[in-house]
């Protein structure tokens, strides 16, 4: 027994050493660019154009933030829109995806194969941007409408299949025993399956929320009213205007004065990431090891 315990310790220690090294290395790789973004945001534009983005703060300046927060109410409103879209979209998106995923993995559901293919097929073939845009803009009234920001990201076949894959690992016996207890399908889903699949639901919620948070494309396609702009769209406008003006200047010789862009891009990136970065630690608490399926059964 004693030897056994020692053996345990040796493997745990070696595993931890390797694990710490790998994780620290990868974290540095992930943090470094982010660090440059933060430093860049607080550096004057002239310095960046002349010397590139510094690794360490030089010529400290907050002018980029001042430039952005010049219109602070717009940014705040945009936070509101983004949070609303993210919350509503994530709630309904995950619910719809999870329900469908549950049905698709029920082995007693006769047409599950067909419907799986029905969904999966759309990840292979799509009509492309033009028909989709015409449908949304002309027939579904997406112009300047909040649902233009929510609907396009609502159902994701990819997420659906991930949930389905996870639910597949829950033994059928769980559903069957609940059946015998007289529970209906929806109740089984809500009260037994969902609690059992917390990790995957948390994961998919996180993914869906991030997708909504990161979305700028739908704002660009459908929204003219700046009261409905998503945060990321502000960032893309900023980046895009530099690139677009370059092309316009090149092709048409149009000369337009442009704002300090280098540091502002970085500052905007920070503002856009904002609170969403704290979502992850929040989701982490659902990653609890050892959901014991047997316990539910009994």
């Amino acid at each position, binding site marked *: 027994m004693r030897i056994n315990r020692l053996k345990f310790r040796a493997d745990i220690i070696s595993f931890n050493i390797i694990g710490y090294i790998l994780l620290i290395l990868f974290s540095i790789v992930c943090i470094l660019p982010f660090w440059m973004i933060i430093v860049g945001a607080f550096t004057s534009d*002239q310095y960046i*154009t*002349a*010397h590139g983005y510094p690794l360490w703060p030089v010529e400290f300046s907050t002018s980029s933030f001042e430039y952005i927060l010049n*219109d602070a109410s717009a940014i705040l409103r945009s936070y509101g829109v983004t949070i609303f879209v993210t919350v509503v979209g994530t709630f309904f998106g995950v619910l719809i995806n999870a329900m469908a995923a549950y049905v698709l993995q029920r082995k007693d559901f006769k047409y599950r*194969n*067909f419907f799986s*293919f*029905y969904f999966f*097929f759309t990840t292979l073939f799509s009509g492309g*941007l*033009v028909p989709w*845009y*015409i449908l949304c*803009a*002309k*027939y579904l009234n997406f*112009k300047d409408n909040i649902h233009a920001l929510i609907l396009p990201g609502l159902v994701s076949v990819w997420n659906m299949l991930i949930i389905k894959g996870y639910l597949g690992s829950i033994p059928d016996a769980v559903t069957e025993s609940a059946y015998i207890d007289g529970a209906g399908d929806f109740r089984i889903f809500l009260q037994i399956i969902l609690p059992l699949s917390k990790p995957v639901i948390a994961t998919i919620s996180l993914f869906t929320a991030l997708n909504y948070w990161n979305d*700028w*494309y739908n704002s*660009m*396609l459908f929204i*003219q009213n*700046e009261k409905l702009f998503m945060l990321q*769209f502000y960032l*893309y*406008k900023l*980046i*895009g*205007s*530099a*690139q*677009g*003006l*370059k*092309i*316009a*200047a*090149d*092709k*048409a*010789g*149009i*000369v*337009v*004065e442009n*704002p300090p862009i*280098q540091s502002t891009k970085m500052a905007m990136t920070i503002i856009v990431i904002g609170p969403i970065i704290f979502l992850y630690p929040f989701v982490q608490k659902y990653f609890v090891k050892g959901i014991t399926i047997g316990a539910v059964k009994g």
Partner: protein
Amino acid sequence: MKKNLKLISLILLIVFVLSTVLAGCGKDSPTTSQTSSPVKVTPSETVEEPDEIDISEHRDLIMLFVGDKVADQDMVYEEINKLAKEDLNCTVTVKNLSWADYQQQYPLVLASGEQLDLVYAAEWLGYFEQARKGAFHEITMDDIQKYMPITYEEQDVVSFEQAKVDGKFYMIPNYQFEYNVYRLVGVRMDLAKKYGINEVKTIEDLEKYCEVIAQNEKQMFAIAHEGSGGNDNFALFFRQPNNLHMVGGGSTVFAVKYENGEFDYDNLYNVYTMPEYAEYAKMMRRWAEKGFWSKNAASGQGKINDSFVAGKSAVDVWHVGGVAQDIENAAFNHPDWEFDIIDLTPESFKTVNKFTNNGVAVSINTVDFGRSLMLLEKFKNDQRYFDLTCVGIEGKHWEDAGPNKFRPGPDADKYPIYGTSMWGWMSEKFRRVSETEPPKMRELINSWIPDVVYPITDNFIFDDEPVKSEAAAVANVISTYSTIFDLGMVEDVDGALAEMQDKMLKAGFDKVEAEFRRQYEDFINANR
């Protein structure tokens, strides 16, 4: 599996039928009622009532701009709408396409079939292609006479000729004389003096100057090309010294030569096979090796002129207006620097931009063609409208500084001067220039004016429809290799040139060339 496929194909079939029906319904909507063919739009409506134009019904027109909304755009257009409501019983709503993705979005919006009246159109945005594919409403001289009488009187017919596609035109081009195709340089003269260079007058002088900079100013580039700088090299160091004028629009490879005071329209050159091009490419290679610009210029992310303004480069290659603005900006931050704008190829012919470089078209999905043109007439020829759209609200965004001059107002940054797609109705008549514009710029332009030439080939647009696959494939080869040569990226210039020829042939250049020459000859014979 087979069963699945069958079922899916059944669904597809149903969907197909459904959407066809949907599309059928859509056809009855009023916006598309007059769209069945752009070719047959006749001024029949105009014949009925030649004198009075009926504007009793209020219209809200939608105008498409390329570029993001500037801060005070809504405020300015509120003012416009006050005027327009009174004058024309209409209002206008501006729809902005973000710079972030305008290249993809512009055709998308045109294709969507939603209401759209005035549209900023330009050759560089693909006007000819869109016009040919039925995106715009045809405009006739009768229409202009009826709805835009001042334009009819004042605007040179040449501008409409340039906009013609298969004999018809679909846009009202802007009417200003821009010298944007002509490249010259802005040079840091204080650095020249520092290293004992007295004057920079020719391309050889420039090379010497750059050499000195490259050797001595280790923190600088001589010419900071980043990303797209290649085009500027091509223009300044190849096209202008050789007196060539590009023909056909788009990514053309053909040019005509200007010799002894006139264009030789009979000889059409493929620039990439000219010995002068090989020489130019070798010169660029030499310059690249000497480190005039970054080895990674092609991958650069910054803007060409930013480095010059920030003092990271000594030479700015651009058109006269651009160089002047860069110098203005650089001098603002560094009053101790000295600059000069230099025309390195004074012998080269001078030409103005094609008028189709900016313009306004009326979409095929317009609710009121006549009213759209009438509003455009106001933008072009009513100074109140023109000033509002171009420089903003007086006293707020700008202040009057004498005829055709302005001084920035307190809120100038909220409505940048000439910062929106009003480029489409720019005109020489009302255009205001900055009080502080470098005098050298006017001087140069004024010296060019007497000698400006108007090549008739500017009216020729190559219709690549019969060979469009080949044209796209060839365009890919050209964009690949031209960057390599313009920025001197390969050692073996001759080898790369041969490789390029080979790839172009593979891509079907023969067919493109034959078609191009056929169309060109037809055009020249008809216009001589």
